[in-house]
């Protein structure tokens, strides 16, 4: 019986050795594989970058779809206001260029800075985002992360901004800056703040742009 077991073991070792010879490099360790295969290494790096980019995009999306941003990125013919995103009062409408109409313009009330004594928010060039950059559907539902990402990276919809252009927009645009310093409402209380600071938002955008602005898949 003992001899039979030893014979079987010797046969197994021989098969294992044969398999090792035939398999060649593929039987090496994972780290050795990576070092020996640039393609696989770059694929791994690419996957890691995409994961990191998507994580940064999640942060950006949380800002873009906050009421401070989406109230002027509407799918409607009017702006919205408040954390409940209700229709803007005083019958204001979008107008041809998103700045209101001839005698009822956004700047009829919104000045170049917040008016905290009267509760009217303000920043230079107050206006609605174009409909091509709406972050909601016509039923007032917030668009998915994938939909917003596709729109913001589509240069036919985003004023022809490439990655550095988007980063500059997020860094310098007065209305973007306003969203992080939204002032006080008509009730005198500070408006709800965005989930990130402006520095965090810019940094997230920078990371996302650096890895090629990946977008989530799906609808």
């Amino acid at each position, binding site marked *: 019986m003992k001899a039979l077991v030893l014979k079987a073991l010797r046969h197994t070792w021989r098969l294992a050795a044969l398999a090792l010879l035939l398999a060649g490099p593929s039987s090496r360790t994972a780290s050795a594989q990576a070092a020996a295969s640039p393609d696989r290494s770059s694929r791994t790096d690419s996957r890691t970058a995409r994961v990191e980019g998507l994580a940064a995009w999640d942060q950006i999306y949380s800002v873009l779809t906050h009421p401070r941003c989406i109230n002027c990125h509407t799918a409607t013919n009017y702006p919205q206001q408040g954390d409940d995103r209700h229709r803007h009062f*005083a019958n204001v409408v979008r107008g041809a260029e998103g700045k209101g109409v001839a*005698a*009822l313009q956004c700047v*009829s*009330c919104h000045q170049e800075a917040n008016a905290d004594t009267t509760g009217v928010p303000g920043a230079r060039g107050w206006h609605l985002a174009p409909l091509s950059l709406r972050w909601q559907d016509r039923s007032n539902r917030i668009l998915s992360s994938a939909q917003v990402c596709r729109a913001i990276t589509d240069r036919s919809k985003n004023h022809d901004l490439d990655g550095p252009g988007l980063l500059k927009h997020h860094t310098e645009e007065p209305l973007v800056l306003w969203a992080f310093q939204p002032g006080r409402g008509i009730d005198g209380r500070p408006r709800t703040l965005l989930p990130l600071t402006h520095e965090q938002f810019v940094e997230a955008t920078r990371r996302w742009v650096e890895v090629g602005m990946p977008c989530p898949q799906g609808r």
Partner: protein
Amino acid sequence: METYELIVNGRPMEVTTDPGTPLLWVLREELKMTGTKYGCGIAACGACTVHLGGIPTRSCVVPISLVGGRPVVTIEGIGRDPVGRVVQDAWVSHDVVQCGYCQSGQILTAVALLKAIPKPTDADVEQSMGGNLCRCATYVRIREAIKIASGQVK
């Protein structure tokens, strides 16, 4: 308290007041120009409309600190403007006013509309005048007076 230099209806003026004071109250209380009315105080009714740098503006929500060097035109001065004169004449000839409280804001808004769009459509009138409320419901006469004035604007 701060001191501000203003140009109101073409005249330089100086006021010393709190920076957060709305332009409406500077006009009414400091400069004693009471033609501009307080309606809602939140920019919802349009009674307080003046022209600020040529733009129809709700003076009840604009702090004096944000006015800057932009000229202010009120109902007391709009008649010196050619379009303003035509609109005021149309208002009178068509007997638009009932109680009159909102009418200075209505006229300032109508003048801004006709300066931008001399021949406005009904939709233009509705959209531009849609933020000016009139509790006497003189809306039909307001629209008709604007149409009359638009025929006379050069």
